Structure formats: C-alpha cells, structure tokens
C-alpha cells in the first residue's frame, strides 16, 4: 500500500469526536433551555466533565464565582466560555500522546495548540472587534494532522530535512514531496471525518497557505495562520519543523495590521497563557 493510502486509512482508527459541543451549541440556541438540560448533556461524557471542572476556575475564563459543579459552570462561565471549555476538553483527548516525530515532549503539541487558540482570539478581537468560538475550535485543531503524520515524518525526516535545509522548501511542502500529503491537508480530512463544518475544515487545511484558498471573504484561515506563525516565532511548542514555513506578507495589508500590532498581540498572549495554565495542564 502507498504511504498516503496508509495514512488516509489510519484516519478511520481515530475515535469519533465527542458530540457534546454540538449538542450544547444546539441547546443554547433554544430560548427556553434549562441549566439542568445542558449540564446533563455535558455529564454524559465523564472525561469532558472532569476536564471542564479542572479548567472552569482558570483566570482566563474569568468567572467571579467559585465553580465546583457542572451546573455552576453552565450558570457562571457564560455561553462562549462554556463552549470553549467543552471543546478544549474534547480535543485534549486526542493530543495526550502528542506527535512524536515532530516534538521532543508529548505535551509540546498541546501547548502549541492552546497557545494558537488563545492567540486566535486576540487577533480576532483586533481585526473584527470580537472573539469567536468557532475560530477558537479551528485554531485548537489546526495541527491535528500531526497526530497521525508524526510517525511518518519521523521515518522520512532525513529526506524532509535535506529539502528544507538546502532548497528553501517549507516544511509542509517537503512533507508533500516526500510523504505525498502534508499535515494541514491531513488535518482537514480528520476534521471532515469528525463532521466539522466547512469553515473549520478549511481553516485547518489552509493554515499554512491561506492565500491558496480561493475565497477572499474567509477570514478564519488567515487568523489561524497569523496566530500559528506568532506562536512558532515565540517558540510555544516548538518542534522539528521549527519556523520553516512561508511568510505571507499580504496578510498585513489585507487586515490593515502593522508589525507593532503583531508585537502587541505577543505581549497579550503571554498574559493570557499565564491565566490559562489550567487549560494546558489538562493533558
């Protein structure tokens, strides 16, 4: 079997994504939802329940009330933070083993993913004036392809490194040349297998090359791109791929950003990360 086919086939071995986030989103849309109803949906998944309680009192979520039960979380976190906590808990399950082949430590990929998710909200606020929970989920999942690609990257590393170091080929381009698929595209396929909506799938698939997505009006892949580059620059969960990705300068013009805005976002991110330690420590 060709390597690409082996990789694509192994997508089917990943457990289904917990439906909790979706169900809660639907419930919260109803004008007459009850707290118990929402809490019961969450409690149906014990691992999500445990992780939400670990994260609920982080300064990042900013509740002034002490949260010790799922009912408290539903009442005091606020809808957006509740959804973020549910998605963070849901995604974390798949990142427990990290992505050997890319990273020295098992926790590196998770640290990087949380940092990019937090950064996506800072950039979204700067560009659109508001935070965005769907974007948060996309950012958290942007590197999900690495959980499968890791072992293949490890095998192919000498060839990939040779391309990256001598020919100024980016890491995703080298993955594609050597293995036949890159981690971004593979991540998009995993998100499709999990039935995530198109905007999340595209943000994952195009997170290194948002300029190749022929949909000018879509901002999500661009924001994930900026957030990812910033976190790579800051070394948050830095891996074997290092900073070997393409700079797409037009992103700054597109959103009317200055270099100072990027620097300021980095300063804000270090604060947010200090307030979100509980999110990183759940794996």
């Amino acid at each position: 079997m060709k390597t690409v086919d082996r990789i694509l086939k192994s997508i089917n071995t990943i457990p289904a994504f917990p439906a909790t986030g979706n169900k809660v989103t639907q419930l919260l849309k109803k004008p007459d939802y009850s707290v118990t109803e929402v809490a019961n949906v969450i409690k149906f998944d014990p691992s999500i329940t445990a992780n939400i309680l670990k994260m609920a009192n982080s300064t990042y979520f900013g509740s002034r009330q002490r949260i010790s039960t799922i009912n408290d979380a539903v009442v005091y976190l606020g809808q957006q933070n509740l959804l973020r906590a549910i998605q963070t808990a849901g995604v974390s399950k798949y990142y427990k083993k990290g992505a050997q082949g890319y990273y020295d430590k098992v926790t590196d990929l998770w640290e990087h993913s949380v940092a990019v998710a937090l950064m996506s909200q800072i950039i979204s606020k700067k560009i659109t004036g508001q935070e965005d929970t769907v974007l948060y989920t996309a950012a958290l999942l942007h590197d999900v392809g690495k959980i499968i690609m890791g072992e293949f990257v490890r095998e192919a590393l000498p060839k990939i490194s040779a391309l990256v170091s001598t020919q100024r080929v980016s890491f995703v381009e080298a993955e594609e040349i050597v293995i036949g698929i890159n981690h971004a595209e593979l991540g998009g396929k995993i998100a499709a297998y999990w039935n995530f909506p198109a905007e999340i799938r595209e943000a994952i698939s195009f997170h290194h090359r948002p300029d190749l997505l022929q949909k000018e009006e879509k901002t999500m892949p661009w924001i994930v791109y900026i957030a990812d580059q910033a976190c790579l620059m800051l070394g948050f969960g830095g891996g074997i791929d290092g900073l070997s990705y393409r700079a797409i300068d037009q992103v700054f013009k597109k959103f009317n950003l200055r270099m100072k805005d990027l620097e300021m976002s980095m300063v804000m991110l270090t604060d947010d990360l200090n307030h979100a330690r509980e999110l990183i420590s759940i794996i």
Partner: protein
Amino acid sequence: MSDLIVGISDIKVSNNANDVIVTYALGSCIGVVVYDPLAKVGGMLHYMLPDSTLDQNKAKDNPAMFADTGIPLLFKTCYKLGAEKKRMLVKAAGGASILDDTNYFRIGQKNIMAMRKIFWKNNVMIEKEDTGLNFNRTIRLEMSTGKVFIRSSGGEMREL
C-alpha cells in the same frame, strides 16, 4: 545538580557551581548568556521583543520581555552577585525567522539588531553568536565551567 529554567521574558542568574541554567525553545526570541569566569557568576536572559517603547508599563512590570530593558537588568543582577563588567563574557543565540522573511514577520531579525546595537553602544563584545535561520534552539549554561551548549530542535548538543 539542579537546572534553573529560564522562561520566556525571564532572567535567571547564579553563583552556584552546581547549577545549570537552561532555556528551551527559542524561536525568534533571543537568549543572552553572560559569565564572569573569575567570580564564577553567570546568568541568562530570554527576551521576546526588541524595544520597550512598545509598552512601557509592561516593561516596568517585566523588563526581561524586551532587549533594551532586559540586557541591562541581566548585567545588574549579575553585579549584585559579584560579577564585573570588564570580565563578563557574552554569548547569544536565537532570533530565528520564518521563511522569506519579509517586512512584517521579521521580529527575529529585529531582535538580533537590537541586541548588537545595545552591546556596541556599551562597548561590550559578543564573544559567540548563533542567531538567525529558521529553527528552534535550546541553550544551557554550565555554571562550573561557564561553557555554553546549544541544541537545535532534533539536533545534537554542541558547544557554542
């Protein structure tokens, strides 16, 4: 032997020969290492951005975030442990960039230039430097010998 870990926007200094000062995953940030071989005092700064005028309140709270406030603080903190400027050896690593580093993503380059300018202005030589390119670096300073070791992601540890 204990490892003193330097986080992002952080400084650690020591006069204990048993210590090793380490910083992990430098991307476009820069790690500056100083060591006084006579006093056996040394320290490491891991700064994030070149210039504190970006946010002076932040710089007051945490001078180690910026080159222009962090580097002087690194020296002053070492003086308190008995180091002297004229004996201090300086090494630096980091300042990596993403590919086709164009105008707006060139924070690594700006960090390198800011550091060189500060040392040049203060008549301090940078003895060894491993900066630029596009990979992450880890730096270790052995307090007993003053030796500095660098490891790039996936690579071997080597002396700087």
